[in-house]
């Protein structure tokens, strides 16, 4: 063994086929790309609703009531002669807004609770997780109903209710991931170096648990849209005359035999959006879970 050593050789990257970039793998799945396109379309049209909508949201025109789909009214009209296409656009806007804010709320609150409980352990962990268990024991809709019943029904109550319902899911997932990361040597190294806890959580723990969180976020968005629709359908969500997808369905209930278009179009939008979020979540999981990922990579090389 010689004392004088040359610089350690650099690992040739070209020799070993580099791992495919995550986004390329992600885009190689046709189903994921399709769902991404659908979501972009839905979100874009919802955002641009005030500009692309051909009529006013609440522009009543009784003479045109219950018209079937036509060139003038693509999705037909409702019992008050309002253009259904316009109302579906604005309803999707409301629903997506509710879903996005409530899931963001759940992600932040649940994520912080989970990461702190998982890292701190001990009594704090037990306390937080038992509360989470209690919240899990309530049926989702019942819990949301109870929250809506306490406050006045409306946009922000709906958002708050759905956010609360999804918080425990995020808390549990974050805690489980944090527990595994917390015991890894690289976190221990940081501990022995005297790195502050906040810095360890932000720089080492959080980046290493994003995978499951991203997957759960996109799956939760799908369920949040469904929850909003359910609450509005029961009359406890968004209050008329503001349109929401669930509210439109509730309204269509009385005209099922007279005007099929009133229930079909909002229903299809709910279905397609929820499905697209689910498929997107699956796509994320395939790419972010290393074991799944190896399988896809192998399939590509065959």
């Amino acid at each position: 063994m010689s004392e004088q050593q040359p610089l350690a050789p650099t690992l040739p990257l070209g020799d070993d086929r580099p791992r495919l970039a995550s986004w390329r793998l992600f885009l190689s799945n046709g189903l994921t790309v399709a769902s991404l396109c659908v979501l972009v379309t839905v979100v874009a049209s919802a955002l641009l609703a005030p500009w692309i909508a051909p009529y006013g949201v609440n522009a009543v025109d009784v003479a045109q009531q219950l018209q079937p789909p036509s060139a003038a009214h693509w999705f037909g009209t409702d019992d008050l002669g309002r253009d259904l296409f316009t109302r579906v656009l604005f309803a999707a806007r409301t629903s997506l807004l509710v879903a996005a804010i409530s899931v963001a709320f759940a992600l932040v609150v649940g994520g912080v609770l989970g990461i702190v409980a998982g890292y701190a352990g001990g009594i704090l962990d037990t306390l937080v997780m038992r509360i989470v268990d209690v919240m899990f024991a309530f049926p989702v809709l019942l819990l949301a109903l109870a929250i809506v019943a306490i406050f006045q029904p409306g946009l922000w109550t709906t958002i708050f209710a759905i956010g609360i319902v999804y918080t425990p899911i995020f808390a549990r997932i974050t805690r489980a991931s944090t527990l595994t990361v917390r015991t890894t040597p690289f976190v221990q190294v940081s501990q022995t170096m005297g790195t502050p806890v906040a810095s360890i959580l932000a720089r080492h723990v959080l980046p290493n648990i994003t995978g499951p969180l991203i997957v759960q976020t996109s799956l939760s968005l799908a369920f949040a849209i469904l929850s909003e629709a359910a609450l509005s359908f029961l009359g406890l969500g968004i209050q008329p005359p503001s349109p929401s997808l669930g509210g439109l369905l509730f309204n269509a209930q009385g005209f099922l035999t007279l005007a099929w278009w009133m229930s079909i179009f909002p229903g299809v939008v709910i279905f397609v959006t929820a499905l697209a979020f689910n498929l997107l979540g699956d796509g994320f999981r395939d790419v972010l879970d290393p074991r799944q990922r190896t399988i896809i990579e192998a399939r590509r090389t065959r």
Partner: protein
Amino acid sequence: MSETVLAVSGLHVDIGRRSIVRDLAFEVARDQTLGIVGESGSGKTMSVLAATGLIDAPGSRVSGSSLLRPPGADPVQLVGADRRTLRRVHGDAVGFVFQDPSTSLNPLLTVGRQIGESLEIHRGLTRRQARARAIEMLDAVGLPDPARRVDAYPHQLSGGQRQRAMIAVALACDPALLVADEPTTALDVTTQAQIVELVNALQRRKGTAVVWISHDLGLIGQVADDVLVMRAGETVDRQPVVDVFAHPAHGYTRDLLAARPRLRADGGPPAAPDAPALLEVDGLDVVFSLSTPTGRVAVHAVDDVSFTVRRGTTLALVGESGSGKSTIANALTGLVRPRAGTAVLDGRDVLRARRRDRRQIAMVFQDPFASIDPRCSVEEAIDEPLRVHRLGGGGRAARRTRIGELLEAVELDPALRTRYPHELSGGQRQRVSIARALALEPELVILDEATASLDVSIQARVLALLRRLQGELGLTYLFIAHDLAIVQEMSHEVLVLQGGRTVEYEPAAELFRSPQDPYTQRLLSAVPPTEPGQWSRGRAAEYIAPRDAM
């Protein structure tokens, strides 16, 4: 040479577009052992898995020929064989022992059932007959009290006992061929010696052909008759073991031989200079409280251990797994809280140090793959201690310069600073870990098995680096290891631990010249000697005694 059991020729393995093994050929005969040596990634495991039809990596293609000739049966071509044929052969004519005894046994089945499984399938034995045979097998592999152990679950056995049970599973049907893939790598050195002797003894009794895969040429020298050296999927050397050691044909083999840590009969490291004491540990005592189904159990991990580390010298903590050596390191760095004892570093209490004072002791962990955050680049990893403790001049530019200096100090190309850990080799990562430890400008560096999971040639270079840094920077090391050959190279003083207690604490030169305690002597004799064959066939016969109580 007697009859050939497995003949492999022209074996190629590709996974995806990468060629893993190219044009491999070997033969193993009855009663013979073929040792396959190579560093990690050299394709040694893949080639044997392919030759025995066990390869199941997605996208893998195998070509060539691998002919198994079980005595008294027709030859079987294993490359490209259908699943039925392979199922008939595996466990019957070919037995397997893998590296990790804790995962290769099914935790839900008793040891006896797992030994009996292949007997019931291949030999049509009844459950009762299989059980009787399982007891015989456990007795043959030297497990004490086999009639009781046959009903034990894997978690009730120690690592060495589990590997013995695994060997019993592999040999249950008297296979013509035994494939042992790094069977002792996960075990302690003394247990390794026992397993080697056990396989040799069973082989002599039954005439099994053995393929033994290892990264350790020293170990292969003790078990093999023929040696095949692999590098990057190619065969670089293939000779009888005596010839490999006496006149290696290839430069790579010579490098491997030279890099192998060996015990030296002569002097050893220079005696400790009369340096002032840096760290004084007195009466350190750590107790863990574990929850078990039968209630809380206190484990006395470190029991009243005292030692002194002198400035600029190395103290080695030596012992097998469970001896408490890592727990001492964790107590000194604040990862665990000791029950009693004091540790004074340069006049300050370490055990109750505040977060800000944590930079006096730096630690390098064993696993280079897990000890750097996969989401941090090399630069970010080394920057962390600088940022946290405002070292290296404070400013961002000054820190960048300092990172460059540190990378050069550990002989890494500064161009690597933007790389992520998965783009580095194991040796490079360990250098990054060392640079990160040096960034703290610590008084004491704890090296917790810092080179144990590296390939021998890389290990030799990292050890040389550590010695150079000690000389240049006057570093003080607490060197935790189980391999006495490395300890001899590195340390001025040695403390031998067993079950949390100090067994022997002496200057290295004296300890290696005349080890006092029987436990130290046992550790010493478990290091594979320089010459091939002398250990397992002769001296270590005493290890066959079923002494595996740990």
